[in-house]
Structures are given as structure tokens and as C-alpha cells.
């Protein structure tokens, strides 16, 4: 069972719709028993870094997720700002992140982009996949994913970078460390490539 963590941020309905169409068991929940019963988690998130961290803390789920993800080794996948809060800290705020994947969230440097538009990075962009990453099985990197962001995950360990996107310079857009995965793009809005990522996550 995949639990979409309904802590009050992000597009839970669109993610659930994809699992529904894939006929994969899933639940949108913030209920402790349901979360403990699940074996995988999706952590959505939109908005500012601090607002998202505040909302997650206020939901009272940080301790539980820590136990399940770190204690039990269950898999979790963060999406968009749900990915950024997996890191240690952000240019966008003062609150610490969850610190599950070492790294700092940086604002994309507009000076690195020659033409207009500069920020936000908005639209479909191809990605470069690094090494063997089962979550990218049957993903077409040239077609890529839908991006909508001005900050990126500057991962501390280059080994944790699973894919990059070219925007001004090469920016990490997918990170992983053990059982923790994060995607800057919106797989729930990326048609067949996005569906493939969710299907793969349910199978790894």
C-alpha cells in the first residue's frame, strides 16, 4: 500500500488519480495507523520552503515518518517542494529541512541564464539520467518532465544525484539516498514519463 501523505500541502488528488488509473493500492491519509500500515510514501509539497516545513510539523507527522523511513527503511518519494524539504536547509527560508538527503536548496542564479525568460524555470525540459536508476525505467529523457520552480536541490554528495536538467547550468533534478527519493519536476503532470516514475516507485 502506497500512502500519499496528506499533511496539508501539494496536489494529493492528481497523484492519487495516477495510482487509481494504474490500479495500484493507495491511500491519501494523515492517519497514524494508516501511515504505519503503508509500505511506501509519497511526500507532495507546493509553496515556500518554510511554509511547507511549518505545515508538515504542525501535522504532527515528522516523528512518525522519521521512524518509518529511517527506523523501518520504508521508501519515500518527495515531489517538488516535498523533495526540497528532504534536504538540510534552503535559501528560501530559515527552517531546517528533514535532512534525509544531505544538501542545500539554492535559488537558480538568473545571471547563469543568457536569454529571457530567466526565472521561474517553467515548462517541459529534457533530463540527463545518471547511472542506473530503477525509478527511470521506461522514461524518455529527451521528452523529459514538467518543471515549475526557482530553487534547486544542491546535493552535498554527487552520488545522490540521479538526474540533472540543463537550465543556465546543469542542475540536479532527481536525488536519492538509500530508501529516500526526491524529484524537482512534477511527475503527476508529466504524462507518460511521470506515470512511469510512479509505477516504478510502486515496484522497487
Amino acid at each position, binding site marked *: 500500500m502506497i500512502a500519499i501523505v496528506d499533511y496539508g500541502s501539494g496536489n494529493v488528488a492528481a497523484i492519487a488519480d495516477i495510482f487509481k488509473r494504474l490500479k495500484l493500492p493507495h491511500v491519501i491519509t494523515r492517519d497514524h495507523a494508516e501511515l504505519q500500515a503503508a509500505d511506501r510514501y509519497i511526500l507532495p509539497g507546493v509553496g515556500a520552503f518554510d511554509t511547507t516545513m511549518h505545515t508538515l510539523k504542525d501535522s504532527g507527522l515528522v516523528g512518525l515518518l522519521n521512524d518509518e523511513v529511517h527506523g523501518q527503511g520504508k521508501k519515500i518519494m518527495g515531489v517538488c517542494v516535498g523533495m526540497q524539504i528532504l534536504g538540510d536547509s534552503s535559501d528560501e527560508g530559515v527552517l531546517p529541512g528533514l535532512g534525509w538527503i544531505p544538501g542545500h536548496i539554492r535559488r537558480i542564479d538568473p545571471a547563469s541564464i543568457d536569454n529571457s525568460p530567466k526565472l521561474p524555470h517553467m515548462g517541459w525540459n529534457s533530463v540527463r539520467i545518471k547511472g542506473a536508476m530503477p525509478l527511470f525505467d521506461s522514461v*524518455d529523457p529527451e521528452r523529459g518532465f514538467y518543471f515549475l520552480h526557482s530553487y534547486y536541490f544542491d546535493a552535498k554528495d554527487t552520488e545522490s544525484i540521479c538526474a540533472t536538467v540543463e537550465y543556465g547550468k546543469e542542475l540536479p533534478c532527481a536525488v536519492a539516498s538509500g530508501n529516500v527519493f526526491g524529484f524537482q519536476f512534477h511527475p503527476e*503532470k508529466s504524462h*507518460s514519463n511521470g506515470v512511469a516514475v510512479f509505477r516504478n516507485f510502486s515496484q522497487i
Partner: protein
Amino acid sequence: MLRSRIIPCLLLHQGGLVKTRQFKEPKYVGDPLNAVKIFNEKEVDELMFVDIDATAENRNPSMPLLRSLAVESRMPLCYGGGVTSAEQATKIVATGFEKVSVSSAALARPTLIKEMSEAIGSQSVVVTVDVKANRLFSGYTIYTHNGQNKHKQPLLEFCQQAVSLGAGEIVINSIDHDGQMQGYDLKLARQVRDVIDIPMTMLGGAGTVDHLQALIDTVGTVGAAAGSMFVFKGQYRAVLINYARPMRLQAQHNS
């Protein structure tokens, strides 16, 4: 490489979808949910909905309708129409829309743009401006309320103000070119592109993929939005929901 976005723009009117010409003669073109299902299958880049009744009738966005559109949609969504506060924008994003567009409310009170960008993040704040060419001064005049009310502030000045207040995208909608299917106003596109450095989307005038390509050739990476082109087929404007990208973009999509 970041690709230009080809965006069907759908107008909500009395519960259905319509298409106008120069903001007049709304013609019924179908059911919004059905259109979302077709555009899912076509794997479109983005979809934009504008409720053309909300501001005119001074009412709030219809949240139940937005919810049903968002649940069905597997592509990025933008909503505009009747948004007047950051609280509304927050609710719309929570419903599953990536972007929220404001127009007349932001012209009346520009700080709304700042409030929205603080609430939902700049990347999700779209400012849409409806304009008509002003032949006397060879410039452009901003209009609100479906082209009924003239707005005093000069177009380029307002665009720059919107950027400085935290807009993440500017949509320029040409009233003159609306529904004409004869191509975008490229001079207008170039003028706005030259003064802002955030994403820009043009709306009004596209009738063929060549028109989309001409816009991309003129201003570079851009949002190319269209209504008529994606809901009509042939010179008699038979209703047929369809989608097409210029060849180069389609090749990258099919890679």
C-alpha cells in the same frame, strides 16, 4: 533544452466551454471535463482555463468545477477569472492547479501580485493582460471586464511593475486578434519580451502551427496559447477538440 509551451486556452461560460471573436459572439464548443479528457490523451504541454463570467458577474471562482477539472487533468493547469485575493489563490492551488492568473483585480490593486507570490510562490502567479492596439498612439491599451473597461496605466509599465511585485509569468491576450486565426501580434510580443525577463505567454490570433512557430522564431522560448485553433476545424469552424505542435517541438516530444 527548455521547450516552448503550446497551451490550449479554454473559456468557461455558463457552465460550458465557449470561444469568442474579439471577445464577442461566444460560441458553445463543448463540455469542460470532456475537453480535459481529450487533452490528456493528446499529452498537451499545459492547459489554461479562464472563467469569463466571474469578474463580469463579480463572483468567486467556482471551486467545485475547478476541483473536478483538476482531478481529471494529467497536465499542468492554470486558472483565471474572478480571483481577487491570496486566500483564493491558495485554495485554487490546493485544488490541484499549478498556476493562478489574475487580471482586473491586479490592475486595480497591484499589491495583490505580491500577496499572492508570498502565499503560493512566484512560480505560480500569472498576470494576464487583455490589450487592444491603439492606432492613434501606435501603442497598446489595457482593458478589463472582457474588453469593456479601459485601464489607464501603460502596458509596458504595468508589465514591469508586475514582475517587480513577484509575477512568475505574464500572459498577453490580444483582443484584436482573438478568434481571428490570422497569427499572433508579433510586434506586441516583441515589445513585452524586451521589457520583462520572466516567462511570457501570448494569446490571441493563432490559427496554424506556422503561427506558433512564427511566435517562437520572434521571441525565443515562449508560451504559445490558442483557443480557436484547438477547438475548431476548417473554415466553417466546426467544433473539433484537437492539438498540434510545430514540427521541431513535436520531434522532441516524440523522441
